[in-house]
């Protein structure tokens, strides 16, 4: 059962007892509409790798098996995906860290939110480069996009925001998901940053579904 109240309040919820890929899809569908991959499938299997063969601009290319910095997913979309459903059937020693950035910003001095609103970043992927804002909104709901792997500050406010956000994050407590097997995690991608710890095993695979 998904604790929807916790998901709404914390932007995050863990679900134990994940049985299969079909079960993960079922969980995802109970939260929102699944965004299919270009081949029509709903689940992506993300394999940790050393980055040698990874596409330029991806986390694996930049960090390989080292820890991934905190980020939101699909920051390059004009409207990033709302929820991220992650699942692992087998255990993994590498954990997922996450932090509710909206809560961090609410607790930080008011200036941080002002800076976020004034910040403009340049997003560069292998497909295109474009400008974007950190704060966005859709149908009255606002969200944060932040991916230091592809976003670089384009104005003075963004340069300052980068420094102050790093400071605010380092002073706040992040939570850790330990993958002991048969577990799913649902993250509000408009509120939470997530990252991965160092990977030591050779065949770590995580299942991922994006929700609208």
């Amino acid at each position, binding site marked *: 059962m998904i604790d929807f109240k916790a998901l709404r309040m914390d932007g995050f919820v863990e679900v134990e007892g994940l049985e299969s890929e079909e079960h993960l899809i079922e969980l995802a569908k109970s939260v929102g509409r699944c965004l299919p991959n270009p081949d029509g499938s709903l689940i992506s299997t993300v394999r940790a790798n050393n980055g040698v063969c990874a596409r330029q601009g991806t986390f694996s290319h930049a960090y390989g098996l080292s820890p991934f910095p905190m980020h939101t997913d699909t920051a390059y979309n004009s409207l990033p995906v709302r929820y991220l459903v992650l699942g692992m059937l087998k255990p993994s020693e590498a954990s997922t860290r996450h932090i509710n950035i909206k809560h961090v910003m609410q607790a930080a001095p008011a200036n941080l939110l002002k800076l976020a609103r004034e910040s403009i970043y340049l997003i560069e992927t292998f497909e295109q480069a*474009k400008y974007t804002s950190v704060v*966005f909104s859709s149908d009255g709901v606002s969200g944060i996009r932040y991916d230091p792997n592809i976003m670089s500050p384009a104005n003075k406010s963004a340069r300052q925001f980068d420094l102050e956000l790093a400071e605010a994050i380092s002073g706040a407590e992040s939570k850790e998901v330990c993958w002991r097997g048969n577990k799913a995690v649902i993250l509000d991608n408009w509120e939470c940053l997530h990252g991965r710890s160092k990977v030591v095993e050779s065949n770590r695979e995580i299942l991922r579904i994006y929700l609208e």
Partner: protein
Amino acid sequence: MSWDKDSLLAKSKLYFERAFREDRADDVFGLWCAMGLELLSRSTIAHFSPVLLAEPDKDQKNILSALGLGSVTAHRKSIATTQVLNLCKELIPNFTDAELKIALALAGRRNEEVHSGVAAFVEYKHQQWIGGFYKCCKILAEIQGESLTSLFGEEEAKTAENIIKGMNGELLTKVKGLIAAFAKVFGEHEESDQARLRDESKKQAEILSHQHHHRVTCPACKCDATVQGDTYGLEQIEHKDSEIIVRQSVLPTKFSCTACGMKLSGYGELTAANVADHFTHRTHYSPEQYYELVDPNDAEAMRSYAEDHGYYHFSND
């Protein structure tokens, strides 16, 4: 090709930031403003639907691109700026003919600037377009849930709002009447008196021009007059070998002519009288003055510094 509202709006903000870093009297200021306004008008149309930005084509590839379908890297064709601005007029009730006219004029100047050898923004005076430009920005920002503050930042937005308030048709009639009245009175003076007043006002304007006044021609008597105003925007600091020059833009708010006695107050009145070109204050400092350096060997200066800054001055003399 990215025609989504977010990226177009972010880019327009960036262009406005670049504009406001420039000296207002510089032609580059006008160019950045014009390009920022063009992006803002496109983000406005994307707010209604990015599909409206796609140039119609028989294979509908441009529309696919606007919908975020098909290849991201393919170069697609968007509609011309004239069409974008006409769509703004069609879709936004308070984007009237007046706003369309000024936005088209700025787009035309931008075109001339980048497509020809003409110094398009040198001959297109700041006061001719700045009020209309700010009004266009306000309307286009507000229709997409933004504001002048979120677009320009607090200080620039305040200046823009003041300038917009000054744009008033009744004021124009009042100021034109005032100019005609002062011109008539001045014309009734003896020619020798007119020459004397012209001569005196020229000398006075020369003196005042070194005291943060800006010299202009009086619209009533055509003698030398001056305007003063309020500084706004970023200070531009230039370090030279032996001096530091600080420049800051000035929004003119007071006009005074010593020859005919006409006085005007407020940016709106000055705009109506055609004497509202923004100008720049230049202040020259020595490095010692600018950084408030104190020679440690100068006992008097050190004592005065200590007193000014609340330090206890110890002496065992």
